[in-house]
């Protein structure tokens, strides 16, 4: 009665989990695809199939185009910063002789705090009159008048990206640190004997071995950043004047403020395709 030799046992063990994922993720996704082909709104009960009309409408919807551009720009800026800072943090943690456990715990704190809570805290820190950021900049003599960070699009973006990087760079650092610890120290010793300096050891030993881990961290972060919602919803609500409205925020408004589920579902599908596109691009890269 060895468990491993009974195929139907595997099926029985797998079924509940796969069914739950099917019911909560895949079936709703198909349902949403269907809804996106209709003019269904919560205001009028009936739904008529309208074919690809909702998808056609995307191309002429300036708000959709603008929020897509904002989403991609946000991903590009924040993920680049996260990867660089996360890499730096990982190298720093790898160097630490003592207190690595304590530092690792500290690094986990931003990750563990709910985004809603940290978003509100950052909103407060970027407050023009009361915030710590303006107080610090003033004390350093960098600004003379308080800066209304969240009142202008460019500065609001800066604030949002700082908050995002603060939360996610530690996560990137932990993944990269795990990768660094996998590099056998004999390789460094061999490279040192061959006369490789610090930079060449990093360039020719660390980087090639770390490459898969870096790509995976990049994929995780890109997917996660593409669907950003909580942070921006809490910090600016998409404002000022829609200047920080990303795709998921726009879709949420169409769905739950306008109650237009047909068009809203087309919007969420566009985002889903964007995420899948990135994953496939990554997978092809990883296979090569």
């Amino acid at each position, binding site marked *: 009665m060895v468990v*491993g030799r009974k195929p139907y046992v595997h099926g029985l063990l797998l079924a509940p989990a*796969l069914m739950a994922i099917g019911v909560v993720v895949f079936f709703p996704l198909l349902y949403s695809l269907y809804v996106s082909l209709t003019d269904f709104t919560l205001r009028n009960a009936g739904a008529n199939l309208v074919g690809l009309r909702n998808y056609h409408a995307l191309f002429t919807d300036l708000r959709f185009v603008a929020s897509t551009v904002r989403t991609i720009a946000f991903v590009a800026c924040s993920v680049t910063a996260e990867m660089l800072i996360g890499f730096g943090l990982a190298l720093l943690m790898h160097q630490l002789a003592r207190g690595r456990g304590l530092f690792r715990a500290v690094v986990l*704190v931003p990750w563990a705090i709910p985004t809603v809570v940290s978003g509100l805290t950052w909103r407060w820190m970027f407050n023009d009159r009361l915030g710590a950021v303006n107080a610090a900049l003033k004390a350093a003599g960098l600004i003379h008048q308080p800066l209304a960070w969240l009142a202008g699009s460019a500065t609001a973006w800066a604030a949002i990206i700082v908050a995002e990087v*603060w939360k996610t760079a530690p996560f990137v650092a932990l993944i990269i640190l795990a990768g660094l610890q996998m590099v056998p120290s004999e390789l460094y010793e061999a490279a040192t004997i061959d006369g490789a300096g610090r930079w060449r050891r990093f360039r020719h030993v660390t980087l090639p071995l770390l490459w898969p881990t870096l790509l995976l961290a990049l994929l995780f972060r890109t997917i996660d950043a593409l669907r950003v919602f909580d942070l921006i919803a809490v910090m600016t609500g998409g404002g000022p004047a829609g200047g920080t409205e990303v795709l998921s925020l726009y879709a949420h408004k169409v769905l739950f403020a306008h109650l237009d589920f047909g068009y809203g579902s087309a919007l969420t*599908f566009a985002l889903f395709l964007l995420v899948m596109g990135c994953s496939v691009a990554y997978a092809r890269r990883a296979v090569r």
Partner: protein
Amino acid sequence: MIRRKGRSLAGAAAGAVGIALLAPFIIQLSAALMTSGEIAAGRLVPSALHFGNFRTVLSGQHAFPRYLANSLLIAGTSSLIAVLLGSAAAFALTRLGRRAALAVLLVVLTAAMVPQIAAVSPLFLLLRSAGLLNTYAGLVIPYVGLNLPLAIWILYGFFRQLPPELEEAAAIDGAGFAGTIRHVYMPLAAPGVFTTAILVFIFCWNEFLLALTINTADAMRTVTVGIAMFPGQYEMPWGVIFAASVVVTLPLVALVLVLQRRIVSGLTAGAVKE
């Protein structure tokens, strides 16, 4: 000599980075302990420890204790069920052969890529027609399904390290299926299962978008939604918001400080090729 200098430099840098990482939490804690007058005056440090904001939050004036109970119940139940179903699935995957296991994992991970907003709109409609809006089940069901991919992924990483020979040894000793699971695998798998449960709990506790959309009735709100809704009325009651934030965050920070080694191993399980 140079090496030692480098080490202490790294220590100093780590100290500075650590303070920067903790700063928002410290600022939040400090604002929670101020009076509203002190906050309006733009102070950074409270003149004394004022616990008024905490009293307001916990006295039930804001239904906040109710939000806490809701979150505890929803996140606890979801994490329990997700780990139960996830363990069964992950265990089966370790016995499936590499190819089949990878195929199943690929499907499971595709589910993890679906953006929350894409899941929320159909789930809202489906739960609405099932009459499950503003119920605990209305959040527990989606949380289980949405966290299962991650739970299976992490548990698979842990279970893969358990040697299959144990099973044969147990069979030779005359243990049946249930006995093998109970006496051989459960004790060995417990740390990994526990870590996964903690991670799923944190994810559910922190979740915002679904909670915001599915449970809109005040009595059914979770803590994250409750905190985000404080601002609504007239002026931002920062002191109260931060007191509530501290109450929500403190258990997580404590959990992370105590369990950091396990949490990190869970988060990076499967992320690094061996």
